[in-house]
């Protein structure tokens, strides 16, 4: 286990909400990525008091590693509550690391239509990017060792834990 004191996710989300609110265009569609991103998105949605219902996507069908690892055991439904065409979208995930999840999520979002703008909000940003993807809003940046795996658990009570990666 790591001795780092991990921040409280709810406090991070409040800060993210404040930062998003400062340049909020009217009536964006908030979309969380299953599973952790959807939990964060739900809290952000309440925090921002948005009127358009919350969306969620499962990126399993758009992953770049299907031929290596196959489908996630439980593929969830993707739900985009409203027409995405020309709308402002805020994409939410729990952890941004390689950027591959976000790449897949963008592809999926574009299969629903052509949004006017997509912003990225993540609870945790850590290094090791493998694609040119940067967040617009970040809860906290953490410098973690590549052997460390950070995990958000929920959904009732959000909690961050760091585990040693099984290699």
């Amino acid at each position, binding site marked *: 286990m790591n001795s780092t004191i991990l921040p409280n996710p709810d406090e991070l989300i409040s800060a993210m909400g404040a930062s998003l609110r400062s340049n909020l265009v009217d009536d964006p569609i908030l979309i969380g990525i299953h599973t952790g991103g959807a939990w964060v998105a739900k809290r952000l949605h309440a925090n921002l008091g948005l009127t358009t219902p919350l969306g969620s996507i499962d990126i399993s069908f758009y992953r770049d*590693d299907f031929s290596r690892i196959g489908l996630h055991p439980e593929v969830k439904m993707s739900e985009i509550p409203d027409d995405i065409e020309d709308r402002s979208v805020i994409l939410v995930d729990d952890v941004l690391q390689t950027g591959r999840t976000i790449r897949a999520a963008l592809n999926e979002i574009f299969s629903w239509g052509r949004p006017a703008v997509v912003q990225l909000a993540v609870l945790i940003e850590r290094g090791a990017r493998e694609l040119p993807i940067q967040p617009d809003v970040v809860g906290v940046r953490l410098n973690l060792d590549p052997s460390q795996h950070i995990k958000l658990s929920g959904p009732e009570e959000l909690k961050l834990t760091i585990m040693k990666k099984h290699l």
Partner: protein
Amino acid sequence: MKSLIQFDQDGRLTHFLTIRGLNRETLSEILDDAESFISIGERQIRKVPLLRGRTLVNLFFEDSTRTRTTFEIAAKRLSADVINLNASRLSTNKGERILDTIRTLEAMHTDIFVIRDNASGTSHLLAEHMPPHVHIINAGDGRHEHPTQAMLDMFTIRRHKKDFGDLRVAIVGDILHSRVARSQIHALGILGTRDIRVIGPRTLLPTEIERLGVNTFSDLDEGLEGVDVIMMLRLQLERMEGQLIPSSQEYFRRYGLTTERVRRADPDVIVMHPGPINRGLEIASEVADGENSLILEQVTNGIAVRMSIMAKVMDGQNSSQEADK
């Protein structure tokens, strides 16, 4: 055990040949994933890149426009390249011909073969001779099985009825010659269906079919009493020439599904049929087009279920790796 062929050495499903020998977990996974694939049909771009760069060959030694078309749409929605071969004319010395044909196609780097043949066991035979990276899906083999049809039927039932443990299901018609019925009976059994009834003329009920855990009826009215699901089978007209049934009028009188007979079932009964339907032979038009009928929904569901099965057999060559965030 024949059906073990459909698993690889790590126990993963690599071909989809028969329902028999699969467990409830595998069936449920396929049905759950199909729910997610349904939503792809609702998007602006009805395509996901899961099988991009893969090739699927529809190899049909027996005509079936409907089945072949839904496989084709399913594969295209997964971004695979699709080649349709209608090989029904190549029927002389068939065993050898099929193997030759498929080896030639395999040499062209095909990833999935969807096979329909009027001989039982063709897809098994081919699976035995394929290298591990080639996957076979049985689209109906003789009188043996039609497993993807049974899965889309299970999916359709589950969308309307939830728990199989509470259900009484009737399968009606030519049970003896029906690969659809055989796959349905296995699937319903694996999913824990409370009461599986097979109904048909004695000449069209296999002997000892009770061993599959079903109740048999030769009286349709009696068999339909209180059922939640009615699954009609298509009557093959050539059976009439074999004198297994007297005449089409007589058959319809005794085994045709009419509105009056549907009333014997539960008020919320759903009526299904694998198609194409013979109106006025096994089912009355007013039932086929009526409010309890899910016949067209079955066709739509067939696309998502076949996508799910294709994804399942192609699923990760190396599943121990953890996904990158």
